[in-house]
């Protein structure tokens, strides 16, 4: 499931819904991204997330579909906020539920790595010097590229039990 919203989300109830009455799920992996109070040396007082309505949902749905094709998943979830956030606020939640823990971990990791480089969101950080658009990071690019490897080249074992 995909959601793009300004409102905060309740982590516990979102995750609980994913496994509720699901007795085939052996593992649920989730990742939450939060606003930090520092960017390098600069103190952050707020962060404004801009996005491209329409394309965002489309891009997230494609990432989600790709994960469901690569791994045997019982449920997936992507929630991404936009608008003004302050340090400590939740920005994003991605989660994957599977019979097996490796699939849950890999799919969850994949979701956030691809989201970071493909979903049209932009962060504007408010510091004492004014607003500054966050630069894209090479490390995010290489994290995303990792998932371009073919399935059989992947270094991890996908058959480990939950």
């Amino acid at each position, binding site marked *: 499931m995909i959601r793009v919203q300004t409102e905060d989300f309740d982590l516990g109830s979102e995750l609980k819904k994913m496994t509720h009455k699901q007795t085939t799920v052996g593992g649920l992996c989730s990742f939450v*991204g939060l606003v930090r109070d520092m960017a390098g040396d600069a103190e952050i007082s707020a962060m404004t*997330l*801009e*996005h*491209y309505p*329409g*394309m965002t949902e*489309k*891009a997230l749905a494609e990432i989600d579909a790709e994960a469901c094709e690569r791994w045997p998943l019982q449920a997936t979830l992507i929630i*991404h906020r936009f608008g003004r956030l302050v340090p400590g606020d939740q*920005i*994003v939640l991605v989660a994957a539920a599977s019979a097996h823990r490796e699939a849950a971990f890999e799919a969850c990791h994949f979701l*956030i790595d691809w*989201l*970071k*480089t*493909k*979903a*049209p*969101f*932009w*962060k*504007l950080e408010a510091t004492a010097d004014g607003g500054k*658009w*966050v*630069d*894209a*990071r090479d490390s*995010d690019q290489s994290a995303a590229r990792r998932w371009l490897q073919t399935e059989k080249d992947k270094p991890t074992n996908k058959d480990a039990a939950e």
Partner: protein
Amino acid sequence: MKVLYFASVRETIGIPEEEIELLDGMSTVRELMTWLKQKDGTYERAFAEDALVRVAVNQEYVTLQHPISKDDEIAFFPPVTGG
């Protein structure tokens, strides 16, 4: 065509979107960019570094070689930084 700008590109150009008429010789994204740059210095600044401009046509990422047509929604923006 509906042309959209986001984030730093929007900030530099000063507007979030505009209608642009498809003219002769404007058959690819690159040609549209060139036309915009010639129109006004703010576009020149917004598109100064080609490598840092991302383009979507009808909400799908494309390269500068991508063809455009009159009902397209074309968006220009910097590399994404969500998550």
